[in-house]
C-alpha cells in the first residue's frame, strides 16, 4: 500500500526544518529538551523543580495515551491502574534491593515498565475485541479495581496506607528535587523520542489506518487486532514508566495516588492539550500539574471545605469546555503555539 505524503494544509507550506532529515530533527529536539530541563532545574526554586519533575513523569503517561487514543482510536479510562502497576513494582523491588546502590533504581524502573507491558497486553487483548462504550467500560473497571486489589492483598500492598519507596540519596551534592527532575525528564524525553520514531514509520501508519477505517485497513493487509493490542502495550509501557517515576517522586505509593479521577484527568489532559500530538501530550502534562495547584491557590483565601475537594475537577471541566470551543484541536493547535502534529495524517478526523 502506498501512502501518499500530503503536505499539511494549515500554516506555512514549507518550513526549513521539514527538509532536514527527520532523525536529526528528533535528536535535536531531544537534546534541546534536555538542555532546557537542566537549565530550568538550576533556575527554579526547589518546589517548582519538583513540579517540573512531576510534569516529566506525567508526560510519559500522556504521550503514550495520546498515541493510543488519538492515533489508534482506543479510549482508555484505565491508565491510572497501569501507572499503579509500575509504581507498586518499583516500591516492592526497591524494598527488596534496598541499600545496594543507585543501579537498583534502574532495575526497578525497567521491571515496572516490563510488568506494565504485561498488564497492558492482557487488557489490550480484551480491549481489541471491544468498541466504543464497552471499551470505555472495561478500562474503567481496570481503574476502579486498584484499591480493591491493594486491600484484598494487604499483606503485600498494605491497603490504603500503601508502601514507602526506599531510595538512595542522590549522588554527590545534587539537591533531591533536581535529581528527581533529571530522572523524570530522562524518562520523558526517551518516551517522546521513542514514540515519535514509532508513529512516524509503518506502525504509525497502521495505527491510523485502523483508527480511520478498520475494514479498509483489513483490506490493505493490516492486522487490525494485532495493531490494536500492540498500541495498547506500547501505551501501557509508557504508563508503567510514568507510574514508576511518580513513585520515585512521592517516595511512597498508595491507591489514593491512582484514583479513578486520575485516569479521567489523563484523558481530559490529552484532549485539552491536543489529541494525537506529542506536543499536546506535553501541554496536557503541564495542565495536570498546574490546574490542581491553581485550584489550591484560588481556594486558599476562602472556606475550602464547601468545595469538597472538587474544585480541580471543576477547573478541568471549564478548561475543557473553553479550549474545545476556542480550539477544537487543543492547545497544541493554537497559534503561535501551532505545531505540526507527528504526521500530516494524524489530524483528528471525525468519522461520520
Amino acid at each position, binding site marked *: 500500500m502506498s501512502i501518499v505524503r500530503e503536505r499539511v494544509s494549515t500554516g506555512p507550506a514549507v*518550513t526549513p*526544518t521539514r527538509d532536514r532529515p527527520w532523525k536529526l530533527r528528533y535528536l535535536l*529536539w531531544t537534546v*534541546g*529538551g534536555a538542555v*532546557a530541563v537542566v537549565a*530550568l532545574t538550576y*533556575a*527554579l*526554586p*526547589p*518546589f*517548582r523543580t*519538583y513540579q*517540573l519533575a512531576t510534569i516529566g513523569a506525567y508526560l510519559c503517561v500522556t504521550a503514550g495515551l495520546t498515541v493510543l487514543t488519538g492515533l489508534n482510536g482506543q479510549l482508555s479510562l484505565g491508565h491510572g491502574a497501569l501507572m499503579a502497576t509500575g509504581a507498586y513494582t518499583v516500591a516492592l523491588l526497591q524494598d527488596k534491593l534496598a541499600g545496594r546502590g543507585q543501579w537498583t533504581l534502574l532495575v526497578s524502573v525497567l521491571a515496572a515498565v516490563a510488568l506494565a507491558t504485561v498488564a497492558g497486553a492482557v487488557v489490550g487483548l480484551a480491549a481489541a475485541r471491544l468498541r466504543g462504550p464497552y471499551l470505555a467500560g472495561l478500562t474503567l473497571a481496570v481503574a476502579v479495581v486498584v*484499591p*480493591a486489589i491493594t*486491600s484484598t492483598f*494487604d499483606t503485600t500492598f*498494605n*491497603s*490504603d*496506607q*500503601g508502601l*514507602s519507596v526506599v531510595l538512595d*540519596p542522590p549522588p554527590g551534592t545534587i539537591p*533531591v*528535587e533536581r535529581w528527581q527532575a533529571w530522572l523524570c525528564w530522562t524518562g520523558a524525553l526517551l518516551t517522546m523520542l521513542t514514540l515519535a520514531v514509532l508513529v512516524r514509520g509503518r506502525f504509525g501508519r497502521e495505527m491510523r489506518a485502523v483508527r480511520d477505517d478498520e475494514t479498509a485497513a483489513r483490506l490493505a493487509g493490516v492486522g487490525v487486532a494485532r495493531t490494536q493490542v500492540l498500541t495498547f502495550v506500547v501505551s501501557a509501557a509508557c504508563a508503567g514508566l510514568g507510574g514508576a517515576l511518580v513513585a520515585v517522586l*512521592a*517516595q*511512597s505509593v*498508595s*491507591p*489514593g*495516588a*491512582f*484514583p479513578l479521577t486520575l485516569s479521567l484527568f489523563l484523558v481530559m489532559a490529552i484532549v485539552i492539550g491536543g489529541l494525537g500530538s506529542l*506536543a499536546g501530550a*506535553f501541554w496536557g502534562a*503541564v495542565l495536570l500539574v*498546574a490546574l490542581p495547584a491553581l485550584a*489550591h491557590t484560588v481556594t486558599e483565601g476562602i472556606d*475550602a*471545605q464547601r*468545595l*469538597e*475537594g472538587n474544585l480541580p475537577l471543576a477547573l478541568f471541566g471549564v478548561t475543557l469546555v473553553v479550549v474545545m470551543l476556542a480550539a477544537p484541536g487543543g492547545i497544541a493547535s493554537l497559534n*503561535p*503555539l*501551532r*505545531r*505540526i502534529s507527528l504526521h500530516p495524517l494524524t489530524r483528528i478526523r471525525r468519522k461520520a
Partner: protein
Amino acid sequence: MRRTSTALVALALVAAATACSDSGGGGSSSNTPGVTGSEIVVGTHMPLTGPAAAGYSKIAPASKAYFDYVNANGGVHGRKITYKIMDDTYNPATTQQVVRELVLQDKVFAILNGLGTPTHTGVLDFLKTNRVPDLFVASGSRSWNQPDKYPGTFGFNVDYTVEGKILATHVKQTQAGKKVCFLGQDDDFGRDALAGIEKILGPVAAKQSYVTSNPNVGPQMGALKQAGCQVVMLATVPGFTALSLGTASKIGFKPQFVVSQVGADLTTLKKQLGPAAPLTEGLISDNYLPLSTDDANPWIQLYKRVNSQYNGNAEFDNNVVYGMSVAYLFVQTLQAAGKDLTRDGLIAAVEKGGFQGPGMAPLRFSKTDHSGYGGMKMSRVQGGEQAYFGTVYQTDDADGAVQPYTAAPAVPPSNGIPAAP
C-alpha cells in the same frame, strides 16, 4: 522553528509562575526558615474533606484560634504565629504533595500536628531529609517515637498500643469470659491498637478490618455477628465508628462497643448518626484531655472563651479541645526554645520536656522518648452524655504493667498563655 518558540513560551510561563509565587524569604536574624523578627510560620496537613473529615476537620481551626488568641496578646517572644492548614483529604498521596508545598514553597518553620497514621507515615522521610521539626503528630502510631531514626518527629496522642492495653484491661476486669472481637483500620492504626489489646487479652475471637476508601462495613459486622462477639473493640476514625454502630444495629447485632479515643467524640458521632444518635448509649472509650462537656474544668472554660472569640463559636467538642491543647503545648515549646529560635533549639526544647498542661496523663518527652501522652482514663456514654469514670491508667507499649497514675492535673495560667520558663 515553531517548536523553539513553544519551548520559549513554556519557559516564560514557568518563569512567570515562579516570579508570582515566590515571595522572598524574609531575612530572619537567625536565618531559620519560617522565622522572622515578627512571625513564625508553621504548617499542617489535615483531612478537611473526605472520608475522615468528620470531626477531624475541626482540629486545625481550633489550634489556629488559640494561636490567634496568643497573637492578640502579643505573640511569643514578640512573634505572631501563622498557621497554614492544608487539606490532604486523608489521602497519603495528597499528603505528599501538600507537605512538599509547605516545606519547599511556603518554607514553614515546622510541621505541627499533621493528622493521620497512613498519611503522615509517608512524609516522615521527606521531613527528616529537609530537617523540618515534625511536632505532635495527630495519631497514636508508634512510628513517631523513633528518636534515632526520626530525630525531629514527636507524637502527641497516647499511642494506640498503650491505649489498646488500657482498654483491654478494662474489658478484662468488667467483661470477664465474654467473647471479645476487633474491627480496625487496615493500617498501622489498626495494627498497633490490636497489638495492645492482644498483649492483655491474648488473641481476639475474631478480627476484621476496613479501608477508608470503601465506606461499607456490612460484611465485617456480619462476620463479627456470626462469630458470636459480645464485645467489639474498634480502632476506627469517627465516620467509621458511626458506620459500625449503625450497621450493627441494622443487622440486629448489639455487642458492647469499646472505641479508641480518636474515633469516639460523642458530638461528632451524634452528628454522623443523626436520628440514630441513641445507638451511642453505653459506648466505652477513654481520653487524656478534659472532656468538652466538663464546664467546671478551668481548661474547658479557657478554651470556650477562645472558641467564642477566635473560632466563630464553632460547636464545642473534643476535637476543639484537642486542637487547642496541641496549640497550647506548641506555645509552651516556643516559650521554652527562647527568643533566638532555631529548628534545633525547638527540638531540644521538646526533648527537655517537663510540660504541664491540660492532660491528665504525663507527657513523656525526653531525648530517648518521643511519644506523647502516656496514659488514659476510661469514659462511658450514659444518658446521652460522655463522662469519665475510674482512675487514670498509664503503661508502655511493651510488656509493662497497666498502673494507676495519681498526679493532679495542672491549672492553666490566669491569662491562658504559658509563660516563658
